């Protein structure tokens, strides 16, 4: 998950300062904003427009670019590898998100019981978030090796051993598992903060009415966690769509095409074969897909009931 998408769900607060308190300071505001503007313009806005332009070109960086019209896009739509990459990336997102989110909510519920030692557990759960994906990818590769740590454990438990990263069927779930390992504790923190924001009187009222714990969870906790849930889902879905580092060190897209996720395919097309136009078209399509998935989630959550406690 990348840091730069993290604020998507955060709403702008109402401007609380009255206009009179804002003062006109001539050129000063522009001086304050200028460095960041250069950064945004050069490294975000212009590249964002440029990727659209480059996607309309044939360009391998060696010869000069030529206009290709929409042919890169038609090529993507007729490219079985691109379709395969998109499908397994969606599969990867689906392997990740439900499990990771449910685990994060469960851990948050447990930590929220304010028993002694909870701060230590909370800290331990956050540690995977700090791990460099490349380094931890290598470590997991070692753990998942045939005759590796996990296999020894399975052997002790008399369970069948699996060549996790060497089997078409298991390689992608194994990479997804690393991602779940890395992000569950991080997402748990948001749910924990959300839980701590739920007023206790709601639960007390529910208890007076004799509500069961399960009923309390579904009628109080979950609806009130909905803004947090939306935030966590949107950021982690966007992040999962862009998986790269762990795939790069653990499988290089293999075995066969089993873990050739979309980002890895863009990387290969763009930076190993220097098909700049084609890779740009792939990038634009990924942007559209991520945008649609994000909007879908917003729409889904808007239609759900929410409580207004203010």
């Amino acid at each position, binding site marked *: 998950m990348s840091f730069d998408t993290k604020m998507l769900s955060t709403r702008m607060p109402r401007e609380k300062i009255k206009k009179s308190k804002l003062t006109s300071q001539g050129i000063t505001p522009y001086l304050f904003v200028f460095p960041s503007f250069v*950064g945004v313009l050069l490294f*975000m*806005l212009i590249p*964002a427009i440029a990727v659209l332009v480059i996607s309309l070109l044939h360009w391998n960086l060696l010869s000069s670019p030529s206009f290709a019209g929409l042919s890169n896009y038609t090529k993507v739509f007729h490219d079985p590898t691109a379709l395969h990459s998109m499908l397994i990336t969606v599969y990867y997102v689906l392997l990740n998100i439900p499990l990771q989110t449910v685990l994060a909510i469960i*851990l948050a519920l447990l930590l929220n019981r304010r028993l002694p030692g909870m701060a230590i557990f909370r800290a331990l759960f956050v540690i995977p978030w700090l791990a460099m994906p490349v380094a931890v990818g290598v*470590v997991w590769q070692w753990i998942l090796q045939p005759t590796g740590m996990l296999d020894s454990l399975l052997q002790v438990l008399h369970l069948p051993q699996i060549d996790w990263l060497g089997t078409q069927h298991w390689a992608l779930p194994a990479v997804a598992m690393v991602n779940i390992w890395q992000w569950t504790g991080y997402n748990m923190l948001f749910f924990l903060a959300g839980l701590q924001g739920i007023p206790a009187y709601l639960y007390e009222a529910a208890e007076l009415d004799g509500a069961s714990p399960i009923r309390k969870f579904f009628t109080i906790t979950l609806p009130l966690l909905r803004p947090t849930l939306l935030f966590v889902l949107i950021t982690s879905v966007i992040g999962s769509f862009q998986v790269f580092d762990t795939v790069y060190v653990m499988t290089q897209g293999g075995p066969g095409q089993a873990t050739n996720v979309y980002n890895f395919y863009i990387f290969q097309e763009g930076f190993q074969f220097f098909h700049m136009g084609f890779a740009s078209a792939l990038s634009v399509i990924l942007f559209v897909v991520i945008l649609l998935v994000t909007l879908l989630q917003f729409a889904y959550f808007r239609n759900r009931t929410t409580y207004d406690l203010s």
Partner: protein
Amino acid sequence: MSHARSAWWVNALIYAVLCVGACISIFPYLISILTSLKPANEVYAGHLFPSHVDFKNYLEVWTSVPFGRYLLNTLFVSVVIVLGQLIFGSLAAYAFARMRFMGRNVLFMIYLSTLMVPNIVTLIPLFILMKDLGWINSYAALIAPTVLSTPVGIFLLRQFFLGIPGDIEEAARIDGAGVVRIFLQIILPLSRPILATLAIITFVTSWNNFLWPLIVTNTDQYKVVSLGIASFQLQYGAEWNELMAAATIALLPLIILFILFQKQIIRSIQLTGLK
């Protein structure tokens, strides 16, 4: 919440689940450290612990590739990016939060709109830009795209600045303080928690970054640690004990940072999710 009345076995179950979770959380770190201390003939022996502690693998990693150089590069690049984000980010955020100027709202909307574009989308144009600037294999390429601050950082800081009561600045203004002095002597000291948040998250992101360095650098002189691991894996992939030593070197600095600033880091993550 009123959980104090839970039965003892409920609490025992909770602790059991949490312990399993905690073990899974730190398991890869332990494996990495333990394997890195094993001599080559014990790697496949199936024992969790090495028969004796042996730092030979670290020495091997350190001498067979310039790992020290990679570490210094990563540290340098990360620190410069953090400083840049703090300085340029807080300047811009303060202007957006507290100053009135023409085009402010339009500009801010433009900044926000860039948040919708995932990193990967702009990767190819950025690479071509770096190539045209002649910055491939340079610190400039590693640092430039994020050092002038990012919209997400500016947004985080702006939200915090908006929450500072305007009266404080008003009082300073009546006392004759100029806008730069108010910013430096009042706003920034009040904003330490959010500046720490931005610093921590930027540092972690930058330390662990892989795809961008992979694209813009390929010589030892400018390689960062993540890249060092990948190339070490390529060369010495079967030497698991040495590979684990390399991974441990990459993982440990942030763990030490976490042990030192644990509460601050946890709060920092939570702050990024606040409305």
